[in-house]
């Protein structure tokens, strides 16, 4: 163990978990509560199931512990160097924690990632001042002899002489595991009145938390059974690796786990909803996966038990960052009543019979000076080329306006234009339904207008 005697690492060591006044936010890392899940929710009669609420760490996840433990010894030295930068391969919570820690110490942070798949986390990282680099995708015309894959190149850059990078290397750094061996694991034992649980269930990401906690628990009681959860191979659950990806992790040792089980994205969301809606725990999908995996593992066993057992799973982070992830997979959860005046309500017949006008007639009509010409394309396209005298209201905005009723007087004729006359027909139909007496769609749209040789201008 690389701990300096007398030099506390985690909050619980310094405060015994009781103080609430800190000198630095980093002291609030760790010492998270262990909360019992109501048996009425999980349905197990002989097992007490506890959630270790890592989502209550100050930067929002279990990774706060590892990030702080890995970066802390080097931050001061890195900050004294010109242009010092913390670098990590992370697309999520470790990046978030490191970005905060780097900023607190006057350093910049760069996250290098294969794919940032969660847009909210990407935006949050940018907000925190992080730099994000996405590695290139696989070559389509593959050269199987090429050895300079992007990751190799990344490591080469880090080890160049004179580099001022502080690479925390979460997948290989033993201080990742150590944070949990000295923190998370002992906290669980302490909160269970000095006993290790019979079961420990954890998702495998960097394998840091599962390995560290498992080691601490087993040191206390070698009989603890550890369940590792990985994502199904074709699936994506944030914070969890597939079994193949786990093999790429230096900290991952299959021997840590008594069993390794697969969990799908749907199951993770199912578990998450139970925690969110029934337990008051605002866990994200990773915590949901751990809950789902725990129940699945324990259910069959529960009936045969003659004495009480206990189980602990980790709630990694919070739900708020995953709304788009959930929306993509479970749009039903976001079902909102459809608003009345929306182009989606129109019947095919309404669209087909929407009043329209061809290019030649439209030119003559515009020449009378009567109609207002509304161009529904994006402002970029409008700025490039448009019909002289037209007004640009991009379709999304126009739809919003129409929710509130007609945005212009009934006495003013309207000519609607879009690229090919499809969207304009929908809106012409909608305006007609709203009672506008003289609205027309430009047949064939701006493309037909151009192809007919009618003038388009830039301002």
């Amino acid at each position, binding site marked *: 163990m690389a701990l300096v005697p007398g030099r506390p690492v985690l909050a619980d060591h310094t405060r015994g978990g009781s103080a609430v006044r800190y000198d630095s936010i980093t002291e609030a890392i760790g010492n998270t509560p262990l909360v019992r899940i109501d048996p009425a929710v999980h349905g197990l009669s002989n097992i007490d199931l506890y959630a270790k609420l890592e989502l209550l760490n100050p930067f929002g996840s279990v990774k706060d512990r590892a990030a702080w433990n890995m970066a802390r010894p080097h931050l001061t030295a890195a900050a004294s160097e010109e242009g010092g930068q913390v670098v990590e391969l992370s697309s999520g919570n470790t990046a978030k924690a490191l970005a905060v820690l780097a900023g607190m110490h006057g350093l910049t942070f760069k996250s290098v990632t294969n794919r940032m798949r969660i847009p909210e986390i990407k935006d949050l990282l940018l907000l925190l001042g992080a730099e994000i680099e*996405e590695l*290139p*995708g696989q070559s389509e015309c*593959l050269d199987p002899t090429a050895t300079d894959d992007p*990751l190799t190149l990344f490591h080469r850059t880090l080890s160049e002489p004179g580099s001022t990078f502080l690479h925390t290397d979460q997948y290989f750094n033993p201080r990742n595991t150590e944070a949990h061996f000295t923190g998370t694991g002992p906290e669980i034992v302490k909160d269970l009145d000095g006993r290790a649980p019979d079961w420990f269930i954890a998702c495998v990401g960097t394998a840091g938390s599962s390995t560290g906690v498992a080691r601490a628990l087993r040191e206390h009681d070698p009989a603890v059974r550890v369940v590792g959860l990985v994502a199904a*191979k074709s699936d994506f659950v944030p914070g969890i690796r597939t079994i*193949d990806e786990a093999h790429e992790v230096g900290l991952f040792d299959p021997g840590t786990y008594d069993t390794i089980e697969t969990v799908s994205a749907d199951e993770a969301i199912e578990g998450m909803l139970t925690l969110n809606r029934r337990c008051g725990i605002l866990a994200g999908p990773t915590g949901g996966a751990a809950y789902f995996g725990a129940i699945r593992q324990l259910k069959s066993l529960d009936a045969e038990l003659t004495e009480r057992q206990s189980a602990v799973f980790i709630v990694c982070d919070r739900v708020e960052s995953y709304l788009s992830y959930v929306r993509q997979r479970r749009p039903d959860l976001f079902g909102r009543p459809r608003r009345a005046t929306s182009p989606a309500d129109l019947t095919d017949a309404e669209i087909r019979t929407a009043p329209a006008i061809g290019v030649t007639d439209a030119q003559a009509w515009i020449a009378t000076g009567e109609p207002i010409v509304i161009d529904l394309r*994006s402002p970029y396209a409008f700025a490039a080329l448009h019909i002289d005298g037209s007004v640009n209201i991009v379709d999304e905005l126009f739809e919003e306006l129409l929710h509130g009723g007609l945005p212009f007087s009934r006495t003013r004729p309207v000519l609607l234009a879009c690229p090919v006359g499809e969207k304009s027909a929908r809106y012409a139909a909608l305006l007609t339904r709203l009672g506008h007496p003289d609205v027309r769609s430009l047949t064939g749209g701006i493309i037909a207008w151009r192809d007919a040789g009618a003038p388009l201008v830039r301002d």
Partner: protein
Amino acid sequence: MGGQPLYLAPRLGPRLRSLLDTPELLHTLTDALGSPLNVILPDQLADNLRQFRAVYDTHHLSGQVFLAHKANRSSALLRRLAATDAGVDVASLGELQHALGAGLTPDRITATGPKNPEFLWLAARTSVTVSLDTRGELEQLATLVRGHALPRARVLLRLSGFETSGVRVLTRRSRFGTPVAESAALLDAVERHADVLDLVGVAYHLDTTSLAEKAVALEGCLRVLEECRSRGLRPRAVDIGGGFGVNYLADGGQWERYTTALTEAVLGIRPPLTHGGHGYGLRNESGTLRGTLGLYPAHRPIAGARYLDELLSHPAASLGGRPLAALLLEHLYDLHIEPGRALLDQCGLTLTRVLEVRDQEADGPLAVRLAAKADDVALEDHGVLMDPVLVPEGSPGPPVPVHLFGNLCLESDLITRRTVFLPRRPAPGDLLAFANTAGYCMDFHATRAQHQPAAPKAAAWQEGGRWRWCLDDQYWPTTPVGGAQ
């Protein structure tokens, strides 16, 4: 052989399936024309084209689909293409001559890639659109057109080195194209040579499977086109190149099982799955998997026309988040694409004859020698792992592991390094058919090393419920009965 057989069954469309169900014909063909033999299915090309056109229709886009000629040298494919409304992308003087000779008119041809003066001259002489890589090439073409009093040349500017803001999307450096940062000088040159050059639009081609990188490039092109318009130029098109990919395998589960087993084999958890324990780029460093899997993602549900659809639906982050298709449409640009592999999906197969079947160690894989060199079946060169089909199929027995060797006097002449499982023990005289080789895997790499033959090509088509064939060079759209009408 440690555990369950690991199959990687090829995805076979109705045409390839039907052809493989006529073993007599395939044996007759190889008896007459020799092994290896490439069989081309020209009609499939037209079907694939329709799928791409359907995506254009969904997004209301216009523009041309250009077959990347370099993927296959077949005349039958090019002549069949000429009978559709699609175009061809040529990358050499020979390819341009071939395309013109196959009946593709200059308005349906784009010249790309490294060019010599002869190639440039013929392209300009025939008014083929030329995709220019550098300012030097632009100057060269302008001089050529003036010096030889050629018609005003239609040009595309190929760009590279696209920049992003916010998230930095890294991409491999391309040796083709002009960096976007230097596009201003390029446009100055276009304006200076306006009397001899007519700017059609801009182009990019990125060698990546990543949608995000391509979206960044397309956004970059739109910005350059906007710059063109502000200079008073009137570009009409964006050419986004190819790289839409092919789904080679029938079963995603097989692919997942195989790749998992391969990582386990590399880590020593299970016996090797390859000749000599080859790891396809993966290696074991003290129990941790290192390296990168150097394999084509052979099971790829989103490939070809579906990939194009995804790309066009991708939101343009720097341009208000509207889908790329909507931006192209609103800016009134035509979309040109240059698929090679994807347009030739299911367009042919390679037949090889089994010469020798030899037992190696007990229960180990059989050594099977084929009348073909590894470069005749270039799937492995492209990192594509896919089972060959045994012809005739025979009655299935217990699966038989084999290693497939080529006929060169060279240790490394392996058709694939993978241990392949066949549904029965093969015998000399059997055929092994490698499906779906028309895109890059037929003649791109084939040599005549050691005076071994390179595979000839035959074109095959269905007529009145039966398969008909001719030599590739004999095929014209009039060849099938009814084709002349």
